[in-house]
């Protein structure tokens, strides 16, 4: 893996540009690497939870990655793309601090940034005018249907996802 500081600072830009080219990633669960982006393709190798990989490309729900000397396809949801590893935000602070130091333009706590924190929410006063604007912009079901048709969207029958048996989180993040 490359230098953490460098990758962390360039990563967000890479992702925003939609390029998955050679960004680091971490495997979130024991998984297989397939020779094609399909679970019916032959498995090229196995990777363990926590393994570092390099993400080369993305296709639908699959990522093309390199793990050690092996290259193959892995499920998108089995990887955390980026330099955060399995770490929670608490541990990842190190990366954030390093980024800030190495690249002043990435200091994100900028004055004048319009945030939305708990104090602002708590003290918020009912805004009837904005609510009326919101109501006025609502779209009817018929309008939504023609919007969908214009984009070639067709309704599909898809079953709900079951709650996983053990939702063992990748990280512990008790404080939040």
């Amino acid at each position: 893996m490359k230098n953490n500081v460098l990758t962390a600072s360039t990563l967000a830009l890479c992702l925003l540009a939609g390029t998955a080219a050679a960004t680091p990633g971490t495997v979130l669960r024991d998984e297989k690497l397939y020779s094609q982006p399909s679970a019916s393709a032959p498995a090229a190798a196995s990777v363990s939870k926590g393994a570092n990989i390099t993400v080369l490309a993305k296709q639908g729900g699959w990522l093309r990655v390199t793990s050690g000397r092996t290259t193959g396809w892995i499920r998108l949801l089995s990887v955390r793309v980026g330099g955060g590893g399995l770490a929670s935000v608490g541990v990842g602070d190190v990366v954030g601090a390093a980024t800030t130091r190495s690249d002043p333009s990435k200091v994100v706590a900028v004055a004048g940034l319009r945030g939305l924190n708990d104090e602002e929410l708590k003290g918020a006063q009912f805004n009837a005018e904005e609510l009326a604007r919101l109501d006025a912009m609502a779209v009817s079901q018929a309008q939504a249907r023609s919007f969908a048709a214009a984009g070639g969207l067709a309704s599909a029958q898809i079953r709900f996802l079951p709650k996983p048996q053990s939702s063992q989180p990748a990280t512990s993040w008790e404080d939040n």
Partner: protein
Amino acid sequence: MRAALALLLLFMAGSPLSAQAFDLGKLLEERINQELEKRDKSRQQQSAPAQAAPAQPAPAGAQSAAASPPPARQKVDAAQIGFALFGDYSLEEENRIGRQIAGNLLGAARLVPDAALQRYVNEVGQWVAQHSGRPELSWRFGVLDSDAINAFAAPGGYIFVTRGLYRLLNSEAELAGVLGHEIAHVTQKHHLKLLKQSSLIGALGQAASNKVKDSDPAIQNLIGNGAEIMARGLDKEAEFEADRIGMVYAARAGYDPWGLPNVLQDMAALPAKDSRTSLLYKTHPHPADRLSALGAAVGDRMDNVRGKELSGRFYRLP
């Protein structure tokens, strides 16, 4: 709190029906005052560190009790508490609650003054909501003029994303995934359940009598101060559930199902100290945990689902 509710219901079940309506207010007031006194005592006994770092997510009621100073002894509005206690909220009550929360939220952040953007988000949102099992709600969608990265849902079908989150998106499928997650909070009535858990405290809380135009004082009393319910957050399981359901809603609407996972990936890659995500991370599990939990649920179930990304049609902010 749960024990108190059970006690209360038991208490009332014992009283004759005719007298119940009459004495309800007084009865509730007595019980609640007892509870408050108990809590005051236990708070004094508890040491500060134990309160600051609960090992497990505490129920919403306990959180707000720990966070706010002892509630002022206000006169109890029996009707209001009654409607929080008995059965489900009606659709009309749900709409009133949602409207009040949405109006307050818009007091903290206005809508982005871009009619084309707002219309686009309503078109995508309304289409996804038609696949949610609650198409009868008056769904309204808005982009809030805030650099924070967050999204909000209020009962009755009010959905908001911030400009900061919108800027992270790359396609209509990603927008559909985010809106699907928020729509799922509404269909699963996550905030209404939260309100039910904490309504006894909320009703007695410090909510200032709100004289703002068109504001609903009874509902405001129920939801606490301003839009603080939006800052309180739901439990982790509710967020994981909204991810699972939201992904399915977007896919049912014909979108590529990987929109929401892609947004979670992008959020997981943001610097940890990014102030734009401070409230998001306070109220949501870490995106890496959400990816992991969603992955465990999805497995191979979406392998044969083909949908549209529509990145070409995605409305990009200037």
